[in-house]
């Protein structure tokens, strides 16, 4: 390379001290697209986007036998990841980004946005930012900011701080309902102080500003769907996160 790198004027001490936000975005367009539905073994692919060995995401499930683990949809408009449970209550499947890299810290705004749909309005769902978890509904993660479904159409919002023994996820009804098989945009913003504002389809859907806001933690995006007796499918269009640099 000839010449020099043009660092921002007066800030030539590195990208992350230049004030640029830390960004994460996944359209879910790469990786396996033709993996069999039949058996989990077929989907334990170490090469694809959702590999169990070297993939970007940790995939988790219980003894799911007729659903399928997260996979890239074969023809999703704009790229989709989809996952499915079977029709046994308690069956779940989900994924979480490796590493907890997104800080909820004072004076650093954080923004999360995703677009997703569920096949029905009968599932349990947990979507947002959380400390590592593999069964987020029955055993809520230690720290989290999340949207949830608890067996009906009510979109719930919730935060948790040092909440590892809280048991079932229990949020507050946002008063907005999810519609079966219809994409919904979910977003939340932490203001860098004490308030998390939630949005559904671009409209305000509640705030949380109490001791449960997990300030001082580091979280990771997580998506989980769990059956209450029906076969459930969760389809995610994208996941985006921005957080002010420290």
């Amino acid at each position: 390379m000839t010449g020099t790198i043009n660092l921002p004027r007066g800030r030539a001490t590195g990208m992350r001290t230049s004030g640029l936000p830390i960004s994460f975005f996944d359209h879910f367009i790469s990786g396996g697209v033709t993996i069999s539905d039949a058996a989990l073994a077929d989907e334990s692919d170490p090469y694809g986007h959702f590999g169990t060995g070297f993939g970007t995401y940790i995939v988790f499930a219980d003894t799911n036998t007729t659903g399928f683990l997260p996979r890239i949809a074969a023809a999703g408009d704009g790229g989709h990841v989809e996952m499915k449970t079977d029709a046994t209550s308690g069956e779940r499947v989900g994924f979480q980004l490796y590493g907890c890299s997104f800080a909820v810290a004072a004076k650093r705004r954080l923004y999360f946005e995703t677009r997703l749909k569920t096949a029905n309005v009968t599932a349990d769902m947990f979507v947002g930012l959380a400390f590592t978890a593999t069964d987020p509904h029955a055993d809520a993660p230690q720290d989290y900011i999340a949207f949830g479904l608890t067996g009906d159409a009510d979109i719930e919002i919730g935060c948790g701080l040092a909440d590892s023994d809280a048991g079932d996820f229990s949020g507050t009804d946002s008063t907005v309902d999810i519609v079966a098989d219809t994409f919904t945009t979910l977003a939340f913003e932490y203001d860098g102080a004490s308030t998390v504002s939630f949005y559904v389809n671009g409209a305000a859907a509640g705030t949380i500003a109490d001791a449960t806001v997990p300030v001082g933690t580091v979280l990771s995006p997580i998506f989980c769907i769990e059956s209450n007796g029906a076969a459930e499918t969760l389809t995610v269009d994208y996941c985006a996160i921005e957080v002010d640099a420290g």
Partner: protein
Amino acid sequence: MNLQGKIGSFYRSQPFEFFDDFAWTEGGTSFQLTPPLPTLKWFIGLFPGSGTPFFGSTTSTEGGKNGRLHVASGNVSGNNVNVQLNGNCFVFQRGRRMYFESLLRVSTVAASTVQLVVGMFSSNLNHYDNMATTVADGFGFTMSEDGDLEYVIRSGGSGSKTDTGQDITAATDFLIAAYYDGGNNIKFYRDGTLIKTIETLPSDGAHLTPTFNIGTGTTTSVSLIMDYFGAWVDRA
């Protein structure tokens, strides 16, 4: 952080985009020629048979700065390498703009030799050989064995390719792009200059994906060196 007043649905308002600068190949597996191909980022077809293709990142002596992908056909007439991004997730739909751009070079422009396809096309295992038959939908560029750079359109299983009148120089980068304006026009560009506007469109709702193919019509192996491929489409 600049959410432009669209907080709560900011990314939803942005186009869906893809960019590969071929700076690395995801642990060496993105272009791995051995199974499990279906799990990879790019899906590869080799015709006929395997030929003797080369497939990998270029070295610095081959112009590999900033990441370049080097694909070479075998040296038997008809050998070609066909590559498509897995997923078919770019939907061509009226009212939704679509764009692609690629910077690339080919090793030769010798007559009867180069078989090139670059663009956004529906699924097919061999876009060069099947362009006039089973490639259902898409738009982009081709270089047939006469060495001319052509623009090509496929719509519901029919279409055409037409000489752009543009000459390509062997082993020299050229930039090609095409833009669907969301209405009735697709515009083709070479090195940033508009060279053709057409009003024939791929089928409404056709699923397309970034595609490239390099092959030979003689016993001369042909190399495609691609600096990058980028594409975006408005969200529904």
